[in-house]
């Protein structure tokens, strides 16, 4: 039963089973209908304020940073270059995977292959069992959300704590992350204060600095005692067999350095060919996400600790994950895998800004989620997502690797129609529309009827013309009836003129 993150029942007592409710949010029943959550999100004033502020400011700072430092033509050229390097890596993923595996193994890393979520978890659970792990600290990883790793580990008695502050809070509050990069933009300080008081027995405070210090203290003790550290991976470097993770908090370095065993969960699409390529990807990643030149910490890991090293994990494992990626790897959709998970498209998207992340009903939300989720989970299960877009193209402009998201949205829409996955009334409406437009007489009749109807409505309901208004003579319609009422809820439309354009043209240009 999906739990709306905004309802107080989301914090109902699920004692000792962190994340149970939270994961329901990202795994609703299928096929998924977006409307309920989207409606409740747009009606929630707090969510609207928070998501709006967070995304708008990040989108603006992204643009400002790139324009100030590089200028628009260079920004575009960088996006083109970054996109082409990722595309090349994907086009030759067989070669780079093999190169990566060999180099990682040469550095002492144990490399595993997981066809799907179940296998990925099974490998990790086996590693945990062999080392009798009781406590695991984890840094942010979308892939582990895909596989539902945390409940699986908890299930074998290994307490698993999210250490990214936003993820930690979300886990504590039995909630789910709502944004790829900043997981709790939908949450306010009061919710955090209550969660800490309830779950950590902390004194009540709503001050963000104090709350952060409470989390820091709690998590430091966990780092000290943890026997297993789990991370994701922002990039895999084929040339050296390295895993690269980028954080601002430092939790990534703790999770990969303190415990004796480190396991990295990484999707195969994260591969890049060379260390040199990190220059462009690192420069673009943080700037696209938050406008920073680099994230505070970039950690390049190549193998477990060497014998002579002072500290570091004794064992390092990498689980290379497919879980639907090889399907997307096919030529027609391959470009989608360029994604470096910067979140820029989420911050640019006017739809995401209104409905927030949970409304997408999946691990990957926003514009990239709208195309990846149907690919991973079945188009029939998520046909609402490609339709939840006005095709404005803001996502494409924001994407540092130039994924043509609008192109894929349209492609998926046409597959929905071609596969007759849209509902009957949609199909009938479109069929009728097409018939009417194809025939000159029905087209003209339709146009004439529409004009008469609007002008009648204007006479009955027309709003007074405004001063200096270009449509002053004709006036405005502020309320359309019936099923089209929604159009005029937030906008007025000008009354159509007495003559259609074609009619006016014929009359004024008859001498030509």
């Amino acid at each position, binding site marked *: 039963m999906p739990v709306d993150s905004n309802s107080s029942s989301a914090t109902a007592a699920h004692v000792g089973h962190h994340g149970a409710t939270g994961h329901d949010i990202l795994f609703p029943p299928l096929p998924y209908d977006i409307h309920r959550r989207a409606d409740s999100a747009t009606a929630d004033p707090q969510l609207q304020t928070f998501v709006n502020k967070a995304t708008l400011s990040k989108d603006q700072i992204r643009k400002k940073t790139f324009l100030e430092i590089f200028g628009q033509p260079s920004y575009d050229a960088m996006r083109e270059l970054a996109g082409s390097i990722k595309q090349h890596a994907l086009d030759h993923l067989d070669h780079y995977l093999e190169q990566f595996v060999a180099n990682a193994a040469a550095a002492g890393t144990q490399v595993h292959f997981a066809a799907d979520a179940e296998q990925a978890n099974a490998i990790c659970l086996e590693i945990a069992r062999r080392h009798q792990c009781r406590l695991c600290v984890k840094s942010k990883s979308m892939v582990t959300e895909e596989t539902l790793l945390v409940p699986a580990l908890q299930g074998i008695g290994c307490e698993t704590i999210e250490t990214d502050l936003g993820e930690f809070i979300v886990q504590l509050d039995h909630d789910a992350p709502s944004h790829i990069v900043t997981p709790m933009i939908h949450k306010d300080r009061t919710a955090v204060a209550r969660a800490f008081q309830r779950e950590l027995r902390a004194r009540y405070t709503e001050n963000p600095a104090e709350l952060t210090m409470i989390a820091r203290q709690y998590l430091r003790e966990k780092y000290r005692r943890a026997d297993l550290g789990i991370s994701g991976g922002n990039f895999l470097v084929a040339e050296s067999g390295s895993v690269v993770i980028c954080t601002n908090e430092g939790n990534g370095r703790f999770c*990969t350095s303190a415990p004796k065993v480190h396991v990295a969960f990484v999707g195969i699409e994260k591969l890049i060919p060379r260390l*040199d390529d990190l220059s462009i990807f690192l420069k673009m990643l943080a700037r696209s996400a938050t406008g920073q030149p680099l994230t505070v*910490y970039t950690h390049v890991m*190549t193998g477990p600790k060497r014998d002579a090293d*002072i500290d570091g994990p004794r064992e390092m494992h990498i689980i290379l994950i497919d879980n639907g990626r*090889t399907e997307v790897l096919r030529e027609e959709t391959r470009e989608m895998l360029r994604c470096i998970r910067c979140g820029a498209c989420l911050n640019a998207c006017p739809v995401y800004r209104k409905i927030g992340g949970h409304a997408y009903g999946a691990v990957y939300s926003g514009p990239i989620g709208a195309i990846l989720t149907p690919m991973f989970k079945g188009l029939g299960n998520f046909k609402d997502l490609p339709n939840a877009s006005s095709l404005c193209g803001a996502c494409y402009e924001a994407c540092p690797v130039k994924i043509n998201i609008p192109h894929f949205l349209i492609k998926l829409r046409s597959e929905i129609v071609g596969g007759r996955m849209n509902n009957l009334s949609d199909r009938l409406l479109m069929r009728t529309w097409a018939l009417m437009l194809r025939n000159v007489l029905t087209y003209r009749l339709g146009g004439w009827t529409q004009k008469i109807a609007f002008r009648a409505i204007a006479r009955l309901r027309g709003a007074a013309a405004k001063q200096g208004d270009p449509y002053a003579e004709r006036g405005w319609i502020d309320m359309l009836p019936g099923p089209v009422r929604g159009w005029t809820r937030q906008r007025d439309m000008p009354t159509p003129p007495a003559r259609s354009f074609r009619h006016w043209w014929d009359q004024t240009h008859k001498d030509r």
Partner: protein
Amino acid sequence: MDEHANPIRPGHMSDNTYPGEDRETFMQRVRTALGRGHTQSPPQTPVPAVDDHLIRTARRDADPVDLFTRRAEEVGMSVRLVTSTDLAGRLAVLLDELKIKTAVIAAAKIPIGKVNAALAEANVQVLDVSGADGFDCSFDVDAGITDAQAAIAESGTLVCCADSLHGRGASLVPPIHIAIVRRGDIVSDLLDLWDRFDSTAMPSSIALITGPSKTADIEGELVKGVHGPGTVVVLVVTDE
């Protein structure tokens, strides 16, 4: 990268008693998606070159100390310029200023004698990280004093690598990180960093550190020192 310098070697995989798919089945699925039956090695088309001119933000000949100082301060680190002769003295003053009583060290490039002299002068107790649980020691000290294998001027970044004299914990765990950087180790741009590493002989850990630890997860309000150090002070040795 010359392919022959790094031949693909099979057989160094995880022991196959772990669950998961065998490598060949996994790779076959990848190849099928790419429309071929055998791995194309090397790739038929070359990887696009990283256009130095396009993405470089700091010229190779830029004054490294000046640029590094500005950028490091912009990201919230505090920078002091010292010379090799006054390093020990200035470090002692800093330790005193920050009221540091206990520390861990990770230093090799700066003669350890100078650091030890400063620590003695400021009466700081140093914990030995070379024991069995070197990482754990860092939790109980006031500061970590490290040198940096490199630094990047354009972004104000410290580059700290793990090896037999440098633990990962010193620059991460204590609430204060004091880093000592030599002018000669400051490169202009991130592009210039990778030449310093051999892809076949990488350290187990390279940490690029650009400022104190921070988060703005709670209502977008910036808080420093979440997990990593909240205070980072860099001493730049200008005559080395």
